[in-house]
């Protein structure tokens, strides 16, 4: 399955930058409202402290000190993995099918990682010390604290992805300069500093190596490493401990990452009439990945459940029994299974494919993975090895303050894409140049003069 988008003209590629619609304005306004709602609640949290959340102490009080904030943090980092999967697929493995969505995925990585960082900021009791306490302690604490490992690896992932974007954007901006808005000239000048066409091959090689570095680091050592280790290394909570958490976290990350890309790419295609730029074939391919990663997700859940209930140590058995007795857990698993079944069904019978259905199921997957992550954190804390406290397990329902952060973060991601798409092309120029190793025997419609006037 290959996709040829080489016939699409540059004007189509730059449509987000050149158009200005009322729908865009509404979208920006909606994003700002979402952020505003969160800021309103976050102001209260700063004013009164974390008491405005429904978090509490585990122990003599029956609460959970970690809740939705940490669950959402893990979830956002998981979504961030989409960027590198797609870029690596294109650059390292030559899977040019996904070239049209590679940059969208990279941008999603930046946005999602920012949101992950945001959730850490709002999770801590003293956000004002997040730099002044963390940086001076780093040289001595990185040797011990899994949280410091997280900070380190997430910073590295963020920076590498950023450099990747900054280097790849030079090629596009240089060639599209004439068609880009003049008022942003200083931005483009800065982004293409020192550019010469001779550098293309050098840069191409450099970014190959960045992709190589990230593809090892992000999945295996970030979401399959330091993040699950935050929990898996602790002996105090039965439901968290153990080696399966790494692979399990990774499977969840990959599943939500592909869902995230499907949603954002579909949104761009819908908004800018990019049927030829991001053809169905891209989404059909992404659907297969979604199905495959969902399968891994479900399989690793099975591993945990079966080892947790057969003849497990009593505390683990208890934690697992509670987990499988929680209806919400099955909702989460059900949402992922639904997407998996649909993905495989469309692979067997292509006529079943429908982009709206895929987007809907992807949203379901994101809901499911978020629920699973929050349950993992919360239920893990509610079933500690030491279970003499009558208050434990208590109950935890995220407060309005906590839920608003979720809304705000989604608003931030939306605003990020709305802004960035006005400045740089969110699809690589390579995607329409056809000089990137894509096959030419494509059967996909690539009409150059297309009926894409919807947006004008």
């Amino acid at each position: 399955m290959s996709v040829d988008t080489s016939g699409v003209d540059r004007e189509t590629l730059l449509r987000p930058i050149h158009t200005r619609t009322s729908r865009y304005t509404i979208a920006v306004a909606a994003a700002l409202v979402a952020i505003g709602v969160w800021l309103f609640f976050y102001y209260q949290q700063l004013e009164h402290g974390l008491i405005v959340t429904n978090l509490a102490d585990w122990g003599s009080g029956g609460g959970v000190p970690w809740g939705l904030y940490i669950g959402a943090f893990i979830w956002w980092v998981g979504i961030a993995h989409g960027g590198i999967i797609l870029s690596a697929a294109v650059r390292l493995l030559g899977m040019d099918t996904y070239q049209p969505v590679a940059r969208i995925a990279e941008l999603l990585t930046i946005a999602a990682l920012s949101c992950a960082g945001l959730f850490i900021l709002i999770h801590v009791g003293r956000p004002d010390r997040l730099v002044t306490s963390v940086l001076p302690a780093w040289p001595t604490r990185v040797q011990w604290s899994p949280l410091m490992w997280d900070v380190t690896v997430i910073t590295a992932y963020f920076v590498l992805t950023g450099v990747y974007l900054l280097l790849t954007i030079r090629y596009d901006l240089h060639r599209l300069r004439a068609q880009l808005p003049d008022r942003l000239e200083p931005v483009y000048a800065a982004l293409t500093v020192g550019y010469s066409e001779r550098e293309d091959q050098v840069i191409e090689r450099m970014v190959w190596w960045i992709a190589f570095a990230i593809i090892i680091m992000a999945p295996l050592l970030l979401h399959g490493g330091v993040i699950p280790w935050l929990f898996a290394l602790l002996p105090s909570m039965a439901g968290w401990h153990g080696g399966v958490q790494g692979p399990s976290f990774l499977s969840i990350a990959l599943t939500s990452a592909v869902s995230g890309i499907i949603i954002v790419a579909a949104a761009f295609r819908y908004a800018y009439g990019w049927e030829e730029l991001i053809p169905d074939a891209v989404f059909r391919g992404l659907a297969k990945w979604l199905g495959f990663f969902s399968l891994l997700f479900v399989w690793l859940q099975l591993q945990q459940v079966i080892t947790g209930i057969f003849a497990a140590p009593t505390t683990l058995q208890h934690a697992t029994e509670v987990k499988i007795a929680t209806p919400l857990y099955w909702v989460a698993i059900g949402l992922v299974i639904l997407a998996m079944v649909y993905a495989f069904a469309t692979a067997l019978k292509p006529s079943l494919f429908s982009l709206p259905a895929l987007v809907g199921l992807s949203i379901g997957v994101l809901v499911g993975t978020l629920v699973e992550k929050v349950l993992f954190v919360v239920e893990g804390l509610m079933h500690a090895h030491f279970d003499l406290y009558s208050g434990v397990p208590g109950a935890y329902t995220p407060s309005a303050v906590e839920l608003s952060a979720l809304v705000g973060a989604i608003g931030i991601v939306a605003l990020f894409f709305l802004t960035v798409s006005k400045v740089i092309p969110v699809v690589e120029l390579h995607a329409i140049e056809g000089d990137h190793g894509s096959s030419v025997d494509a059967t996909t419609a690539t009409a150059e003069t297309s009926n894409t006037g919807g947006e004008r």
Partner: protein
Amino acid sequence: MDDEEMRRLLEQSGYDADLGMRMAEDAQRVAAGELSETKFYGRYHEELLAEFGQDDREFNELRDDLDGEVVTEADDPDGLADRLASLADTEGLSRRELMAKGGAAAMALGVLAGSGGSATSVGGDSGGDDDDRTRWGMVINLNNCDGCLACMVACDQEHNLSRGSNWMYVFTYEDDYQEDDQNFLVRTCQHCTDSPCTKVCPVGARHTRDEDGLVLTDYDICIGCRYCEVSCPYGVNYFQWGEPDVPESEINDEHQIDSRGRWVGSRPPEGVMGKCTFCVDRQDGQMGEEKIGTTACEEACSMDAIHFGDMNDPESPPNQHLSAYFDDNENDRSEWENRSEHTVSSFKLLEERGTDPNVTFVGNEPSQHARQVEGPVTYESVGLVDNRKEVLDNGAMASAGGDDA
């Protein structure tokens, strides 16, 4: 069972059967009083090492300890042999009995080495494994506890804690595996030598104080991520979710700033983590010389259940209490001389978690089937809050309401 059988068993073990036979014979002589145990030890120490293929030099430290103390009886208060000896003394075991009951003794040694001798183990960031250092700890005699909650009240008042923030917490529990209807567990911070909270803290706010092993939180550095709370197997951490009940203006610096000038004492300010400090202000002499080596909970306890002191000092109140209590509960061994010396059960909480706690409990350990029940004195009746969640939920509502207004 004859010698042949014994030899066969020894040979099955795969090690030097001759050595085993000779050891067994000599051990008989020790038992009969014909051979001093010192000599017995000296005779086989080397051979055991040789048999198991180790270069003696690798054992220098080990040997120095053993030889220096067991053989020459050198007066080294920190040595292992002395600890062995004091073990024998504290537990009312004679040296001979210690030998004869090697297994039990070793177990007991483990207990003592973990608490008393726990200078042997490491302090968080301290790097200190020096027995000369003070290592504050407790022996809590649960058999003496009557669940009056005076310790909780005293702690609450001394440290200006917010409601429900029970640095000291007394459980009353029922246990199918114990005779009494009401059993107690008195839970402070365990001030673990190998504390998970210290390890996981990203900023080094939660730390082990070098000089005395106290596990403290630097309120000036803590970012309030609550990782320590999540990592603690005992649930002793209490985050300051909102404004503390007692404002800082009402608390003297003597309570808050320790001898190093770090803000680690009294209740935490908003947004950072707090927990039992073993009354660090008292230990630093800031409450007066006479308060050093005491805690508020210990003082309040009229049942002689809580014993605070330097676990490295055999003469410290906790160690003295332990030995005296063992003596008072001597086993009737007139008929079965192989019975243990005393009938006292002692344990450390969740010791299998590898935390190396500095609190030793006398009494029965709650089983997995233990469940907390209402005690003889309710928390409410002494003005305490059991489940802090209720306070926090109210606080959340009050705050939200306040903003609306």
